[in-house]
C-alpha cells in the first residue's frame, strides 16, 4: 500500500516558491523533475542555496545528496549568488581560434577572479561558456543578455572597468 507523505512547507513566505511548486506539479511531483525544478529555482532566485536544495529534495522525495550531486554535476547550476552584471566569454572552437583566450585572460586580470566566480562586492560574475552559437561572429562575449560580436580585449576591459566603477 502506498504511504502518503506530506509535502513539506515552503522554507519561507517568499511568493517565488509558488513557481517552484508549480514546476514540481507539472513534472508529476516526481524525482524525474529534479533538473527542471532546479532550473526554476535558479531562474527565480538566481542560484541554488542549501535551503532550496533541502526543500526540493524533500518535496520530490530524493536524498539531499542526490539533489546536491545533480546541482554540482551540471555546469549551468550555481550554488553561489551571482553578481549584478555578468560577463560571459564564449570559448567555443570558432571563438578560440579567433582569440577568446586573450579575452578571458583580460577579464580575469581586470576582475581578479577565475571564471565561475563573482567579484567580492558582487558587481560582476565572470563565466566562460562552451559555444553559444553565433560562431560566425566570433569571438563573442555576452554582457548580461547582450551579445557583443567580434569583441576585442580593449573593449572588454573598458566595459568591465565601467561596471566596476558604478
Amino acid at each position, binding site marked *: 500500500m502506498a504511504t502518503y507523505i506530506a509535502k513539506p512547507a515552503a522554507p519561507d513566505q517568499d511568493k517565488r516558491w509558488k513557481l517552484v511548486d508549480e514546476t514540481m506539479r507539472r513534472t508529476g511531483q516526481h*524525482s524525474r523533475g529534479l533538473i527542471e525544478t532546479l532550473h526554476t529555482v535558479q531562474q527565480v532566485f538566481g542560484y541554488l542555496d542549501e535551503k532550496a536544495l533541502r526543500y526540493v529534495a524533500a518535496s520530490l522525495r530524493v536524498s539531499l545528496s542526490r539533489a546536491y550531486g545533480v546541482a554540482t554535476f*551540471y*555546469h549551468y*547550476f550555481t550554488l553561489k549568488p551571482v553578481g549584478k552584471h555578468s560577463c560571459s566569454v564564449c570559448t*567555443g*572552437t570558432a571563438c578560440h581560434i579567433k582569440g577568446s583566450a586573450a579575452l578571458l585572460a583580460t577579464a580575469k586580470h581586470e576582475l581578479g577572479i577565475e571564471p565561475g566566480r563573482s567579484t567580492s562586492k558582487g558587481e560582476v560574475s565572470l563565466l566562460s561558456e*562552451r*559555444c*553559444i552559437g553565433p560562431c560566425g561572429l566570433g569571438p563573442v562575449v555576452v554582457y548580461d543578455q547582450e551579445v557583443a560580436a567580434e569583441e576585442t580585449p580593449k573593449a572588454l576591459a573598458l566595459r568591465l572597468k565601467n561596471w566596476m566603477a558604478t
Partner: protein
Amino acid sequence: MTRENLEQIAESENQRRAEFRDGINVCVATGCLASKSQMVKDALDREVANRGWEKHCQVKGVGCLGLCSEGPLVSTRSGALYKKVIAADAGDILDHAGKAPLHRLLCPTDIPFFHDQQKIVTENSGVIDPERIEDYIAAGGYSALMKALGEMTPAQVIQEVTKSGLRGRGGAGYPTGLKWSTVAKAVGTQKFVICNADEGDPGAFMDRSVLESDPHRVIEGMLIAAYAVGASEGYIYIRAEYPLAIKQLRAALPQAEQLGLLGTGICGTSFNFRIELRVGAGAYVCGEETALIASVEGKRGTPRPRPPYPAQAGLLGQPTLINNVETFASVPPIIRKGGDWYAGIGTEKSKGTKVFSLTGQIRNTGVVEVPMGISLRKMVFEIGGGIPAGRKFKAVQTGGPSGGCIPSEFLDTAVDYESLAQLGSIMGSGGMVVMDESSCMVDVAKYFMDFCMIESCGKCIPCRAGTYQMHRILSAITNMSATPEDLKMLEELCDLVKHTSLCGLGQSAPNPVVSTLKSFATEYKAHIEEHTCPAGVCGKAVGANL
C-alpha cells in the same frame, strides 16, 4: 484535424500573404540577433506604421538566412538579399520595396555559397515565420504526417525511411530505418521517442538554426517516428545555452496541440503522442544517448555500458528511440516525396544532404546544406569563399572534440561518413571549423583536450584520469617544456583512452591529438626540440598585449 482542414489553413495563410503587395523578411535567429537584427525589424515595423503601409507591406521575422557573417540579413519578396543592415536603413529598404533593389546593401546571391547548396532540411529557414504554425502548414508542413497516418502503416513508414538510406545526423551515422525497426520490434509497456537537441560540439550550430527557424519540422518528424515505432510519449532534450530555440519550441508545441496535431486521437486516428521539453544544464556528455536518458530521468548525466541499447531498454527501462534534430527534420520530406527520391541524392553509402555550420578563419561563415559527397575543397574555397587576409589554409576541423583536423593534402576528399573516418576524423554533427596558418595545431589539440577533461563525467577512470594526463603533456608541449619521452607517453595514452573508455566521449577524446600528430608532426617537433611555435601562438603571454 483532417487533410481538408490542413488545406484550408494553408489556403487562408496563402490568401493572407497575397493580400500584402510586398514582403520583407528579417532574420531574427541567434546569429543575426547578435548583430542587432531585432532593432532592424523594429525600425521596419515603425516605418511601415508611419507610412500607413500596414495593409500592403508585410514585415516578417524569419529564421536563419544562412550567411551569418554578413548579418543582419534582410530579404525581400522580389528576391533581393540585403546584408549588414542597420536600423537607419529601414526607410531606404521600404522605398525600394517592389522596385529595383537597393544597391548599397545588396548581397550577391549568385555566389557558390548560395547556388551550390541543396536545401531540404533548411528549405523553410529564412522563409517562414517560425512562430506561426500556419506559415509552416502553408509551406506543406504536416502533410507528411497526414500521409503517414492516412495512407501508410507503421511498417510502410519504416520501409520508406529505410529505402531513403537516411543515417543518423548526430555523428555516428547509424542507419535510421534500422534503428526505427529495432524499436518497433522491441517489447515494452510503453515506448518513447527522444529528440537529441543537446548540440554540444563547440563550433556547431546547425541544430540550433533548424530549431530556431523551423521548429514544427522537428515536431512533425518526431510524430512520424512515434507513429512508426508505436511510441506515445516524446521528449526534446535541448541545451540551456540555446534560449531562442527553447522559446520557439515552447511556442510551437501548444500550437500543434491546439490544432490536434499533438495529444490524443491525433487527426481522428487512435494515435496518441505528446512531447515534453527537457532543458539541459550544461553537460557535454549528455549528448551521449545513455547519459541523455539519465538526464531526462532527472539524474546526473553519466553514461552506462551498452548493451542493452536504448532501443531495447532506454528511458525508464522502456524501448526508446533517440535521434538527432536534423535526422527528425529530414523525415517529413522523405515521407512526402518518397525514399527513392532522397536516396537519389548523395553518395552510395551516405544519402541525402547534410547541414554544416561553417566557421573559423573563412570568408563566408554560416549554415549551409549540401549534398553528401561534396569535396572539402569545394566547401572551403567555393562555398566558404576561401581564407581571408591573404593567409594560407592549414586545416579543417570536423566533428568537434571527437573529430580530427584534416590538412590541405586531403582537401579533395568527399564529405561522407566513410571518407572522413578514413582520415581519422568523423562526420560528427556538422561543425566545420577552418584554420589558417595563424593557428597552432598543438594548441588546437590542447584546446579540445581541455574541453574533454572538463566535460569528462568522471565515471570511468581511463577518461577521467587519461584526459587529465594528456592535457598535462599537451600543456607542457605548448609551454616548450616537454621532452621526447612525453610525446611517447602521449601516444600511448591516446591508444589506452581510446580503447578502454566507457562511452563515446572518452573513446573519441584522443582523436584531435592523433589526427594532428599524424598530419602535423613537425609542429609537435618544433615545440619539443626547438622550443618554438611555428604559428607564433604558444608561449606568448595571452592578454599581455593590452
